[in-house]
C-alpha cells in the first residue's frame, strides 16, 4: 500500500461558513478529499450540531448537516455531543444519544468513526482500556452507549490515549507502530482504535500549527516507513496571544499552513503519498491488517 495520509478534524469552534470555507479550500485549492466531524447535540446551539438539547430542538443548520452526513462528508461522530463542563444545561445520557443514533440511521447514516470530545464533562466518551472519567463504555452508567454505537455501525474509535507524537504508523500492523489497535472495554467489547498524529504541541493542534505537523521531515518519514498516518486537527480554530481557542477568522490557514498543504500536495502529485478520506484509510488498513491487529 502506498504511504497514505488522512486528516481527522474535531469540529470544535466551527460554524457552517468556516466548515464550508475549509473544505472548499482543501478541495479546490489542493484537491484533497477530506471528511469532517459533527455533533449530534450541542445545548449551546452550535451550527455544527444536528440538535440542541433534544430531538425536539433542531440545530440552526440541521438540514444542511443532515445532507452532508448522508453524502458522507460529515463522517465522524465527535463525542456524540458537546457536553463539556462549561456547557451544562443538558447532560449526556444513553437515552439521548440513542435517540440521536436512531434518527441518523433513519434519515441519513451512522458514521463509522467515533472521536472522543471535550473534557471530564463529556462522560459519554469511550475509555477503551484506559478509562478515567469515561462512562460511554461502562455498562453501569446512565451514559453507557458503546453497544448502541457498535450496533449503529461505528467501527473505529479514537480515545484520549491515542494521541501520538510519532507521525508514521504501520498500516497493516506488521512492523513498527500499528495505526490500528484492538482494545477491550469494560463492557467486554473489543473495539478497534486508531492513533492520530498530534505532535508535541502544548495545545491541541489547529489551523495555525498545521505547518508544524506537515513538515518535510514528517512526510519523508512517512514515505520511508511506507505506512499510514492520521493527522489530528482543529482546522476551524485559531488561538489568541494567550493560547485561548476561538473560531478561525479569514484566512483560515495562515501562509505557513498553506505552504505545508502545498508540500503535501506535491508529495501527492509525485505519487509518493496518497491523501484520502479517513473512512477509506481506516477501512483499507483494517482490511490489510487482518489478524495482525492485537488487543492491548
Amino acid at each position: 500500500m502506498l504511504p497514505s495520509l488522512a486528516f481527522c478534524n474535531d469540529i470544535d469552534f466551527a460554524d457552517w461558513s468556516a466548515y464550508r470555507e475549509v473544505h472548499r479550500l482543501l478541495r479546490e485549492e489542493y484537491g484533497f478529499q477530506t471528511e469532517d466531524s459533527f455533533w449530534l447535540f450541542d445545548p449551546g446551539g452550535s451550527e455544527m450540531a444536528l440538535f440542541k438539547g433534544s430531538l425536539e430542538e433542531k440545530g440552526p443548520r440541521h438540514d444542511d448537516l443532515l445532507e452532508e452526513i448522508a453524502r458522507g462528508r460529515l463522517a465522524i461522530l465527535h463525542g456524540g455531543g458537546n457536553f463539556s463542563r462549561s456547557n451544562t444545561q443538558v447532560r449526556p445520557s444513553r437515552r439521548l444519544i440513542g435517540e440521536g443514533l436512531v434518527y441518523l440511521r433513519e434519515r441519513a447514516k451512522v458514521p463509522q468513526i467515533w472521536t472522543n470530545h471535550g473534557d471530564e464533562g463529556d462522560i459519554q466518551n469511550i475509555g477503551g482500556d484506559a478509562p478515567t472519567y469515561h462512562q460511554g463504555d461502562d455498562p453501569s452508567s446512565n451514559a453507557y452507549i458503546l453497544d448502541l454505537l457498535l450496533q449503529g455501525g461505528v467501527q473505529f474509535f479514537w480515545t484520549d490515549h491515542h494521541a501520538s507524537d510519532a507521525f508514521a504508523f504501520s498500516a497493516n500492523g506488521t512492523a513498527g507502530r500499528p495505526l490500528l489497535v484492538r482494545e477491550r472495554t469494560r463492557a467486554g467489547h473489543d473495539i478497534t482504535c486508531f492513533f492520530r498524529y498530534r505532535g508535541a504541541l502544548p495545545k491541541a493542534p489547529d489551523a495555525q500549527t498545521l505547518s508544524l505537523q506537515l513538515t518535510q521531515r514528517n512526510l519523508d518519514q512517512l514515505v520511508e516507513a511506507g505506512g499510514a498516518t492520521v493527522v489530528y486537527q482543529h482546522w476551524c480554530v485559531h488561538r489568541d496571544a494567550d493560547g485561548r481557542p476561538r473560531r478561525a477568522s479569514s484566512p483560515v490557514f495562515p501562509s505557513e499552513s498553506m505552504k505545508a498543504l502545498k508540500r503535501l500536495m506535491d508529495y501527492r502529485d509525485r505519487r509518493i503519498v496518497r491523501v484520502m478520506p479517513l473512512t477509506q484509510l481506516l477501512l483499507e488498513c483494517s482490511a490489510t491488517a487482518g489478524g495482525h491487529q492485537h488487543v492491548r
Partner: protein
Amino acid sequence: MPADLRGVLFAPDRLVPIHRESVRRFVTRIRQDRPACFIPEVPVASELGLPRYEPLLYWIPAHRDIAGRVWQRIRERLGSVVGGRAVVTQVPAHCEQFTELSREEQVHYFAEHLHAICPKPIQVSVIVSNICNLKCVMCPYHSPDIRPTHQTDFFKDRVWMPWEMMDKLASECGASQIPVKIGNVEEPLLHPHIVEFVHACRTRGVPWIHITTNGVTLTEKLASDLLEAGLTSLYVSLDAARPETYRRIRGSVLEQVESNLRAFLRLRREKGVSCSVMASFVRNKGVSEEEIFEFREKWLRNSDGVIFYNLAEYESGNSVFKQINRVAKEKMEKVGGRWPCLNPWQEIYILPDGRVYYCCETVSKLAFEQLESMGRYPEQSLLELWRGEPFTALRRDLVLNKLDRWPACQKCGIWMAHVTATTLEDGVRTTTNMITEIIQCQTQ
C-alpha cells in the same frame, strides 16, 4: 459589639495578636443568624500563594440550630492543633468569611507577625559560585557582549562558595526541612563539592534539592553520583534542538549535552530513583517555531517535561519582558495597580560571598548594581535572616508599596510573574506565566 447580638466571640491562640481594627470591623459585620470567621488576607497576593492564616476570630451566634453544630466543627479543627498552631486550613461550612484588611493590618499580620504562619523560608536558593563554562549570547553574567557593560566586580574574579558555608546551609536547611535550589548565575556542576553538598542536604533532612545546569560536564560518573547523593530535580538548559543553533547560542556541542541528558535519564531508570528531569529552552531571537517544535518532540515525552523561557531584555540588570500575561493584567486592573510580589515571603538567596538577596531580580542585578544585602551568611542563621529587620522592612514596604529603599523592586518588571494559567489538552498540561511555559504530559 451591637447590644442585641447573642453568642460567643472566640479567638483561638494563633501566636499573633489580633489587630484592634480587625476586631472592630469584625464585630460590626457579624449577624445573629450566621456564624462567621476572620481570616487575614492581602488582595491577589493571598490568592497567588501568600502564606495563609487559620481563622483568627470566630463568631458563633446563640442560636439553637447553629451554635452546637459550629462549635463541634471548631472543636474538630482545634483538635488538630500541633505545637500551639492549628494546622488545618479549612473553615467550618456555612461560616461567613471576612478577610478585608487595612494596609496597616496587612503590615501587622504579614510583615510584623509573619513568623506566626511562616517561621522559615519556603525555599533557599544557593548560588555556589560566579563561574560558568559557557558564554551564552543572552546571558547577562557571562556573555562576551554583555560583560563589558557590567558595573560591578562581582563576576571579575572567581568566587566559590566555601565548603564551610555549604555545610552550614545543609545543616540548617535539613534541620528546618527547607527545599534547596541550586543554579542561577553559575554552572553549579563545576563546584568541587557539589555532590557532597547534595548528599549532606539530603542526609540531614532537606526534602527536595534541585539543580539547574547546562549539562556540559554532566558525565555518567557525575550523574550517577548526583542520583545516589539524592538529587530530586534537575533542569538541563539546552536552548536548541539543532546543533547549529546550540553552537550559535551556547558555543558548544549539542550532541554531547543531549547524550549526557539521555545518560542521566537512563541511569535514573536503572537506579529506580525518583528525580524529576526537565529540559529547558530560552526563546532566543532567530530561533524558529519549527525548532521549538522539534525540541518538544525530542524531550516532552522522553523526559518529565519541557520548560520554555521567554527571552528577557536586560536594561541595566532589569529584566524586561515583552508581554504581561492576560490573567496578570486582569488582576492588575482589578486591584488598580500593584500587589506585593510573593518572593520575600517565599525565598532567600545566599550568595557565595555571604551576601543575602531575596529574588531572581536582585540576583540579576549582581553585575550592574550594589544592592543592600539582607544580612550576612553564615554570621547570621537562615532563620535569623528570615525574621530579621531587612526582610521585615521589605515585606512592610511591599505591602505599603513604598519602595524607595528597594531599587530592585522599584524598577522590577516581573513583580506580577507569580500569576499563572494552566491548561490541559489531550493529556498535555501547560502552565504559563510571563516568564515561563512548562509543558508536561500527564501520562508518560
